[in-house]
């Protein structure tokens, strides 16, 4: 029986009702029982988990009170944890052992979290389904024939399948919020700059941000508040106070103005999906929020803007993978041929596509037409949000246009890119944004009910109000509790790549 929250687990460890060691054994047993079917983890070592748990128990025995005492934590495998493999789900980093720990991870370890393992992702966090992982298949716990979303699909699926209560993801264009929606959990991308990226292997540096997955908003808020804050090792991390949402969680949404985006027309969605979001908007109103229509006229250009800016930055960031100092090396006739052969063998198709489009967009003769134009479009998108937030405190919209889709359903890259239609504009503007479960649909071809997520977005650095409102919505509707994922088989035949 899973505990209700990470905060409750930590409390029990701090008062010595439970021990980190016991929680670790229970978590390891859940991974052994459930991950054969789900495939959330790329790496999990019982000895490593027990060692971390022992350290936490020693600290508690010495009198420390830790906000995450003994709480098992899933870590997306693009974040470094010293002494353990960090692969980015790529053949080019397979077997690489990180010699240092990411700041965000370290802050949670300092708070008593026990890293349960490293979770699957689309290679280098490039994708919306986890299907671009070179190292494993992750299945959606609600329907094993469907994707968990991506790129942080492993952490989302680990939480959704009850293997752990909390996990870490990274979000560049929706990589926390879309898998959270697909898996029926809370996923939160803080403002750009809130959480240090030191030790997060870079994809698109002007967009990447680390954030939590949890079964409830308050746990997500706790992880965020522990991770956030200036880090001298990441010059883009901002030095401003982190106001706690947990200090005063509201029970309703009275006094909150929620913007409904005119351009995000629910009529474009399938009728059953549309009905869930119409109900979500009504729920916001019933809880006391005032709904106001706002316009984001440039948001429809978000996907096009993103698929120039993010690949441009990726082509630059991934230049470091050249087979010289770490990772794969494929020897060839000379050093240039070695670079080319190493990168050809080490990167998967989606990473190659993004490196190519990014290199093209930055190349002489195309730079102004593609990259600079996209940066200007980004200005327009951010300005739209600034104007909208003159009239509202939050913006509410679907986190994705559909529930989780079946494997191989989005073979055409542009159709996959459009899965991030509702999450990319917020990323381009750097805004704090989360997905909270808001209901279920049951398409005829699905194995059972499939969750949907409501995306809530706030102005830059307004995390406290965002988390407070999301908590009030969660508390007032309890939508996640309408269904539970089905029991899992011991394994899926041929399920692991």
């Amino acid at each position, binding site marked *: 029986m899973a505990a209700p929250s990470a905060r409750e687990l930590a409390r029990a460890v701090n008062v010595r009702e439970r021990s980190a060691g016991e929680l670790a054994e229970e978590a390891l047993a859940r991974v052994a029982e459930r991950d054969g079917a789900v495939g959330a983890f790329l790496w999990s070592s019982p000895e490593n988990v027990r060692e971390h748990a022992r350290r936490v128990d020693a600290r508690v025995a010495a009198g420390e009170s830790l906000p995450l005492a003994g709480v098992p934590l899933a870590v997306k495998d693009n974040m470094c944890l010293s002494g353990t493999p960090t692969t980015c789900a790529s053949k080019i980093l397979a077997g690489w052992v990180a010699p240092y720990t990411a700041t965000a991870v370290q802050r949670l370890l300092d708070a008593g979290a026990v890293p349960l393992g490293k979770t699957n992702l689309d290679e280098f966090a490039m994708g919306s389904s986890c299907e671009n992982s070179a190292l494993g298949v992750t299945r959606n716990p609600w329907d094993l024939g469907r994707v968990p979303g991506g790129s942080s699909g492993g952490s989302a699926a680990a939480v959704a399948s009850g293997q752990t209560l909390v996990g870490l993801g990274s979000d560049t264009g929706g990589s926390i919020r879309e898998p959270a929606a697909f898996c029926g959990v809370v996923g939160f991308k803080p403002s750009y700059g809130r959480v240090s990226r030191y030790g997060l292997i870079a994809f698109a540096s002007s967009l990447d941000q680390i954030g939590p997955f949890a079964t409830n908003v308050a746990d997500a808020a706790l992880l965020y508040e522990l991770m956030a804050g200036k880090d001298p090792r990441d*010059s883009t991390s901002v030095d401003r106070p982190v106001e706690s949402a947990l200090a005063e969680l509201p029970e309703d949404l009275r006094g909150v103005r929620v913007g409904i985006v005119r351009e995000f027309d629910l009529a474009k969605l399938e009728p059953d999906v549309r009905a869930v979001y119409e109900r979500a908007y009504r729920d916001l109103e019933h809880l006391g929020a005032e709904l106001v229509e706002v316009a984001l006229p440039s948001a429809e250009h978000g996907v096009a803007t993103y698929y120039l800016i993010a690949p441009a930055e990726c082509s630059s960031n991934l230049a470091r993978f050249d087979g010289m*100092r770490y990772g794969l090396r494929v020897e060839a006739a000379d050093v240039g041929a070695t670079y080319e052969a190493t990168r050809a063998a080490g990167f998967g198709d989606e990473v190659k596509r993004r490196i190519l489009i990014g*290199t093209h967009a930055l190349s002489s003769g195309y730079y102004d037409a593609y990259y600079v134009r*996209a940066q200007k479009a*980004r200005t327009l998108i951010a300005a739209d949000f600034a104007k909208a937030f003159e009239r509202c405190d939050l913006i509410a919209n679907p986190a994705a246009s559909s529930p989780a889709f079946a494997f191989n359903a989005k073979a055409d*890259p542009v159709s996959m890119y459009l899965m991030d239609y509702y999450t990319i504009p917020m990323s381009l503007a750097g805004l704090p944004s989360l997905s909270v479960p808001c209901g279920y649909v049951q398409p005829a071809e699905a194995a059972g009910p499939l969750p949907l997520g409501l995306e809530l977005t706030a102005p830059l650095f307004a995390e406290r109000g965002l988390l407070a409102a999301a908590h009030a919505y969660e508390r007032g509707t309890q939508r996640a509790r309408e269904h539970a994922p089905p029991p899992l088989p011991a394994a899926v035949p041929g399920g692991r790549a």
Partner: protein
Amino acid sequence: MASGDIDVAYVAKLARLALEPAEIERFGAQLGALLEYVKALEALPVADVAATAQVIPSANVMRDDVAEPSLPRDAVLAAAPQREGAYFRVPRIIAEEA
């Protein structure tokens, strides 16, 4: 060249990626479709708009110049594809004199 075109073989050379002929063809079609999609940006009125590189107002961020321990050398070198003593071993970069 129309904006929907991309010379994949040339770009792959710039990006240090060896590609098979079949990949050049496949990626060319897929990236051509993406470039068609991003053409929509041409309709945006951006002539007088400043470019945004990132969204947080920040200038050069300085820190105190304090010496700190670097990463443990052996742990770093343990990850090298090839090492020789305390060094990374890499392919020859400068040609021998004729």
